């Protein structure tokens, strides 16, 4: 049986009410039409991470995002998210943001190409309407501009 996170999140929220999980107001589904070896892939992470030279995220309600180069040689990566589980991923952000693994799979021919930039934002903000009306459309636009065929979202 999978580990249950919601009871712990509720306990951590106290005395505030438990965090409300929000579904998108409109459900969308787009069929996968391209094989992986022809697809351009991008990563999205809610870890509020960035290249060290980029401006820091400001916990906890920051609605900005960062364009993170997909070249793993460009770094180092810093995680700004306030979550208590950050001690381990801060030792090695690749375990939540696998830029190097993605580049490795590209070199093996599994993927067509990588988006030149991946994207990072702050997970767990308590402003779902602004996320849906501002942040999500901005990220979606970025992905279309980068001509991405498949977006991988890694929750933090």
């Amino acid at each position, binding site marked *: 049986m999978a580990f249950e996170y919601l009871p712990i999140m509720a306990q951590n929220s106290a005395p505030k009410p438990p965090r409300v999980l929000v*579904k998108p107001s409109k459900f*969308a589904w*787009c*069929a996968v039409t391209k094989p*992986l070896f022809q697809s351009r892939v991008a990563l999205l992470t809610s870890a509020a991470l960035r290249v060290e030279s980029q401006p820091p995220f400001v916990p906890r309600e920051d609605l900005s995002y960062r364009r993170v180069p997909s070249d793993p040689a460009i770094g180092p990566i810093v995680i700004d998210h306030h979550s208590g589980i950050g001690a*381990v991923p801060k030792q090695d952000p690749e*375990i939540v943001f696998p830029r190097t693994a993605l580049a*490795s799979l590209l070199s093996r021919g599994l993927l067509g190409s990588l988006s030149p930039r991946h994207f990072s934002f702050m997970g767990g903000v308590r402003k779902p309407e602004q996320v849906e009306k501002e942040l999500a459309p901005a990220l979606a636009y970025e*992905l279309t501009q980068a001509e991405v065929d498949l977006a991988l979202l890694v*929750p933090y």
Partner: protein
Amino acid sequence: MIEALGIPTLVIGTAYDIMSKVVPPRAAFVDHPVGRTFGPPHDRERNVAVLAKALTEVAQFTQPGMIRDLGCDWSSDGSRSWEQELRAEMLREH
């Protein structure tokens, strides 16, 4: 939002209970502690293995809202002792 613009998405996550409530269009479940989705620190081989499993699963989604289990265990012996440590970590460091 992203799918509405014609870009398929895949969520790769460790929290089955959260994914089952949020219902992403496609979700791949990795049975690892949160914050270690692609393995322990500095284990590039495992990072690649988990990511490759997730990517090859993309074609298997036949309808919206499916969560597919990648069959990734955190411990090589199947032990779930990490759960107790993670629970303490999450409660201690909040």
